């Protein structure tokens, strides 16, 4: 009921008002052949071959605030897709729709369709807890549990009952740490608290913790924004390796990072998905004026 009352008037009003200065800027730097208006249509190609997660017409409201509007995007198997855009553009919100983390925010409401492997993840029978085991998440700030390194990694397998005995659990912990590239640094001190590691190590521990439950998709919400360049480089290398097995959706503020790690890039602006394309094309030949402005540093 509230859906019809709030979202009908909201979409026409909100983008017009908020987009005004940007449209002006776009007019100033008019380049022939570029889309300039901020409409509801996404430029580029939201489809991909071999789609694994498909979002269709996703709208998210936080109370009366229409956070993202009519976003449609396909995420392929074993691909890295980067979501970029200025702060508050809805990329993190979209990311959190993909494993229903928005459920934990009481005022959040999601409409539209998101499917994982062909099944609607917002259907009634879908247990969000089970979904999050399939769609893992790495957060902006490294957030290891205040437990030992071992227990951090073992926590997921334990609650999901993935290991039958101690040996199997040991094995999962070791493999996960190995895949996260952390094993050599921590193998002699698995009993030490996870919080005693450095920031970069903590973030890799969080990644190890996520892959320990063997998800199919990994969502990363600015995983390197709290890290120094060296730690960032290690995480990026790690993503390169991980994408052989997982689909990775990464939100990032660093366009260099998006260019380095992703195969496709989606540009969000004010709750709209403006442009989606192969990384090379986005950075060399963006179709939308706003995308160009953003990647060249004129806005954002």
């Amino acid at each position, binding site marked *: 009921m509230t859906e019809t009352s709030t979202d009908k008037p909201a979409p026409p009003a909100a983008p017009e008002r908020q987009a005004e200065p940007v449209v002006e800027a776009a007019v100033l730097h008019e380049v022939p052949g570029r889309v300039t208006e901020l409409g509801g249509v996404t430029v580029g190609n939201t489809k991909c071959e071999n789609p694994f997660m498909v979002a269709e017409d996703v709208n998210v409201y936080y109370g009366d605030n229409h956070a993202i509007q009519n976003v449609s995007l396909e995420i392929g198997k074993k691909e890295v897709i980067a979501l970029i855009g200025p702060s508050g553009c809805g990329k993190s919100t979209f990311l959190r729709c993909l494993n229903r*983390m928005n459920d934990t925010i*009481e005022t959040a409401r999601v409409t539209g369709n998101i499917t994982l492997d062909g099944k609607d993840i917002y259907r009634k029978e879908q247990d969000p807890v089970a979904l*999050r085991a399939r769609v893992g998440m790495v957060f902006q700030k490294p*957030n290891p549990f205040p437990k030992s390194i071992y227990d951090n990694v073992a926590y997921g397998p334990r609650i999901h009952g993935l290991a039958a005995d101690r040996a199997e659990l040991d094995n999962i912990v070791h493999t996960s740490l190995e895949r996260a590239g952390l094993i050599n640094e921590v193998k002699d001190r698995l009993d030490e608290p996870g919080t005693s590691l450095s920031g970069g190590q903590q973030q890799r521990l969080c990644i190890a913790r996520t892959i320990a439950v063997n998800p199919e998709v990994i969502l990363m919400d600015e995983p390197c924004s709290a890290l120094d360049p060296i730690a960032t480089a290690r995480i990026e290398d790690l993503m390169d390796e991980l994408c052989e097995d997982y689909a990775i959706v990464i939100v990032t503020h660093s366009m260099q990072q998006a260019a380095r790690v992703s195969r496709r890039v989606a540009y969000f602006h004010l709750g709209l998905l403006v442009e989606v394309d192969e990384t090379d094309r986005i950075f060399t030949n963006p179709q939308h004026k706003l995308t160009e402005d953003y990647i060249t540093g004129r806005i954002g």
Partner: protein
Amino acid sequence: MPRRRRKEFTFKLLGMVATAIGIVFLGLFFASLIAEGTSAFKQTFLKLDIELSEDVLAPDGELDLAYADFDGLVRTALRAEIPEASGRRDRRELYRIVSVGAAYQLRDLIAQNPDLLGTTQSLWVPASSNVDMLIKGNIDANIEEALRPLSDKQIGWVRQLQDQGRLESRFNRALFTNGDSREPELAGIKGAVMGSVYMLLVTMALSFPIGVAAAIYLEEFAPRNRWSDLIEVNINNLAAVPSIVFGLLGLAVFINWAALPRAAPLVGGLVLTLLTLPVIIIASRAAIKAVPPSIREAALGLGASQTQVVFHHVLPLALPGMLTGAIIGMSRALGESAPLLMIGMVAFIVDVPGSLTDPATALPVQIFLWADSPERAFAERTSAAIIVLLGFLLVMNLTAVILRKRMERKW
């Protein structure tokens, strides 16, 4: 600029003065308490050579502890020490320098060692509280005779006994091993301490689990709506309700309606539970709120259910804060006297309570009772009881600090 600096200086000075005043008053309080109270830990004893004569104790050849004339033995021994007290009045005055507890002491001695019957024993028996006060200098021998509890003659005998080395100040064990008594030299805090302990056991056993459960529900599971707001406001209000109101509630509900025994630590504990619940709920909610949301998100992101998040991550992290809150609530409960007056725990109870339903009193109420007593010797006992109470509070708060430190290190 100079004005600003002057302002800053005045503000700093004001703060320092305020702190200093606080510290001075606290210091005065402790100093007076210790000066007044420490003497209660000593008690004057009188050495008497008592002949445990068979003829007096068991005139029919059979010893009956309940009826045997132990008093007579004490008096005989006393007369032997001070032969010059010959008249009836003199003797009566003489008997008053020894405590009535001397007879009980003899009785207990014979009960334990019936073999001593017929022998003569040199025993240290408690002197009466007035003698004790005189020795401790709390009775001025120079004021008019009618205005002091001891006559000139009595003081003379006391000095005489003192010169003979028959009076000695010893550790006042009665203070810790006896229940309340009308005689100051026999009165102890054990009954009150045990009453307080039983009450706190009940309070702890009820208020901590209930409080923590309520806090978890309100913080993690309850929907945010008008009802939860109402509950929150009411809990905060409840924490500020005067404690005597809880006493009235306890009287109405637990004693009149539920027909639980009057003056029992069980009822006291229930009332104190009501009193501490809001404190514990508020502290526990604050502790839960202080758990970083990133930990919650991390666990949720791994596919932990809400319950798993709470019990695996939030609760262990919040527990030190909850325990601190609980112990602070307990300290408040320990120091509470008003609600206990309402449920009859203010009665004069000599026996040390042995169970949750025995009549009992509590330490603060005992202090209140003693402070109310006219005997000079109860004044120092009041202070001593306060020192003991403060000692308990100190230990509890220290436990809170140590527990918190230790648990924080673990995580």
